[in-house]
């Protein structure tokens, strides 16, 4: 298997070299920047190889940009009219405002209509990738966060998957009594992992409408549900649920500990699966996923789902049509979708055809399954930090650490969020509500 890929790559490289030598073939070159995690990003290579073989007149060049340090490299390139033809970037009303308002990316609405993308992309995703009645990006994948747990530790300590908050409290208590000083791993030193708790709890307490109301309506982050959610998070920290020093723990290091079987639970997303499965080898079956039970009586469970990133096309790219052809192959054909799924990347939209053709890791299936049970309730964003403007994200990251260190009250925290949100609103760095205007 491995060897075959290498040979194909060799052949591919050789044929690329030939094409460079004979420019008469006049290939359209599309430079694509993809992010993601080290193990995940390779799936795009696979699709690009297939695509290049099928389309001799187009050459897709995948450039992997997994680290967050690549973003600053992208912006100056774009603003001077260079850089990749197709690239991944944040979505939602906050992050892409600068590149959309700056006119750096192409309006994808015509391609959307032409290629009937609407049949695949759900409305919720369209809302996150559109603004001012135009579509700006194609969401690359759905990421669902959930509680990952070690089935073996649970079984050894006679713990069942918690269904109510009382179960949850009892489970944590039992684990603490069994000597696990960190029942739920939380890597707050890296700042962003806490915002996954924040996103889930804000959504659970306020509901999908509550979140939408703040994002696009008159709601405020200082409203009661958000204060209550923050207070609960702080309380869990005080009770030692996240161990003695969550703020000192790094994410990568925490995940090593989780896969090593030293930490019973951690709340995270599917991007850790490819690397994790490699680390645990044949112990993969010891890990499972569940939805955190409702925090309060009468609260509902909403799946936490966000799109990972959007794929944008540079406005002055010479290869827009070729880029769109690649997007079609990648996200809107069964083969493309199946390839993504097998690589641990869940494309947006219905999966029936692709699911049948794909070879999906069990943990990915578990996440999907646990979310599907509650899909009828509506979904909430998994990553508020990637869809809010930069200043609010900074304030959330700092504030969540302050909550866990007990140097900020829930009221102060939410008031600070609202203050930053208001600044962004006043500065106009928030996009108009999503959705496509009727044609």
């Amino acid at each position: 298997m491995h060897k075959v890929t290498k040979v194909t790559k060799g052949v591919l490289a050789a044929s690329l070299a030939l094409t460079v030598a004979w420019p008469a073939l006049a290939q359209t070159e599309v430079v694509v920047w993809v992010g993601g995690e080290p193990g995940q990003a390779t799936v795009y290579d696979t699709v690009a190889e297939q695509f290049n073989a099928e389309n001799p007149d187009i050459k897709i060049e995948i450039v992997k940009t997994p680290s967050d340090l690549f973003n600053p490299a992208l912006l100056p390139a774009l603003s001077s009219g260079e850089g990749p033809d197709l690239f991944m970037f944040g979505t939602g009303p906050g992050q892409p405002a600068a590149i959309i308002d700056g006119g750096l990316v192409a309006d994808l609405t015509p391609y959307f209509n032409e290629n009937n993308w609407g049949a695949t992309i759900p409305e919720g995703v369209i809302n996150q990738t559109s603004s001012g009645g135009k579509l700006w990006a194609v969401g690359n994948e759905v990421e669902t966060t959930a509680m990952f747990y070690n089935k073996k530790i649970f079984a050894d300590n006679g713990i069942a998957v918690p269904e109510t908050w009382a179960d949850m409290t009892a489970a944590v208590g039992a684990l603490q009594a069994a000597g696990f000083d960190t029942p739920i791993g939380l890597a707050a030193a890296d700042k962003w992992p806490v915002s996954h708790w924040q996103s889930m709890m804000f959504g659970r307490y306020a509901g999908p409408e509550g979140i939408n109301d703040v994002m696009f309506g008159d709601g405020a982050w200082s409203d009661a549900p958000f204060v209550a959610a923050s207070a609960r998070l702080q309380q869990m920290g005080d009770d030692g649920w996240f161990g003695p020093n969550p703020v000192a723990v790094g994410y990568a290091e925490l995940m090593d500990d989780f896969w090593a079987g030293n930490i019973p639970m951690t709340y995270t997303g599917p991007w850790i699966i490819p690397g994790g499965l490699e680390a645990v080898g044949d112990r993969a079956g010891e890990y499972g996923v569940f939805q955190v039970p409702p925090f309060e009586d009468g609260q509902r469970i909403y799946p936490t789902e966000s799109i990972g990133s959007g794929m944008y096309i540079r406005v002055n790219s010479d290869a827009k049509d070729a880029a769109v052809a690649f997007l079609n192959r990648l996200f809107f054909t069964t083969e493309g979708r199946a390839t993504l799924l097998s690589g641990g990347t869940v494309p947006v939209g219905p999966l029936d055809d692709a699911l049948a053709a794909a070879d999906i890791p069990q943990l990915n299936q578990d996440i999907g399954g646990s979310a599907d049970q509650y899909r009828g309730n509506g979904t909430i964003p998994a990553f508020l930090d990637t869809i809010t403007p930069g200043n609010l994200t900074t304030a959330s990251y700092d504030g969540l650490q302050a909550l866990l260190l007990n140097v900020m009250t829930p009221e102060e925290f939410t008031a600070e969020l609202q203050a930053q949100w208001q600044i962004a609103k006043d500065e106009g760095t928030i996009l108009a509500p999503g959705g496509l205007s009727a044609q």
Partner: protein
Amino acid sequence: MASRLIVFGILALIAFLMTAPSAMTLFTSLKPPEELILPAWTPPASITFEHFERVWTDGGFRRYFLNTILISAVDAIVMIGLASMTAYAMVFMSFRGKLALQVLFVVGLMIPVTAIILPLYTTIRSVGLINTHLGVIFADLALAMPVFVFMFSSYFVSIPRALHEAARIDGATEFQIYRRVVMPVSVPAIITTGLLEFMWSWNDLLLRLLLLPREGMRTLSVGLLNFQGQQTRDIAGISAGTVIMAIPVVLLFLFFQRHFVRGMTAGAVK
């Protein structure tokens, strides 16, 4: 005698502490996947080179290696020439505006690259050098120039004036004096400059990330980022990459260490 042993003991302890963190990296790079979840400071029970292989081929290090060598070698050689000539003019020639030039170089010593990265990009783009090795080389030279002018100047000051005067009386041109009199006695400063510039250029990340966006032009420091995701990291890949990156510089260092020691400050002391 006893005091000598104590000194040796202290130094051995310091050397151990300084080396221990790097040893962890070496261990990790050699561990098979199933051993990676063990604590980092345990040596590998069985050694594998699979991570090196993976980094070298799939990780693209083979190509990055050549790119990096090319940039660093050109950087080092050109820097030696330019910085020494500039320092020569500053030390041995008299001209108006010398003080202003000195001030200009002192300011350059302090410029944080992170602060000027955007206009630097625009500047390099305006001359069409984005995604060329030449663009990175120019930026490297410009940003590190002050340090090495400073270093060569402090070395040249220690060269006896009489040597320079004698050559001039013999009718040698400035360039001949520079080439035949001053440079031959400045070997330590030359080696120091070459080594340091090579090393800084070798490890620099930010400029390369920004100025060489295309895969085929990338350097090792950027290649290392391929093993560092936004959320997870491939620790074995990073470790193997780090070891591969360190080897050439360590070898150069060992080879030139003797000269290196003398080069930095021979001038400053006198």
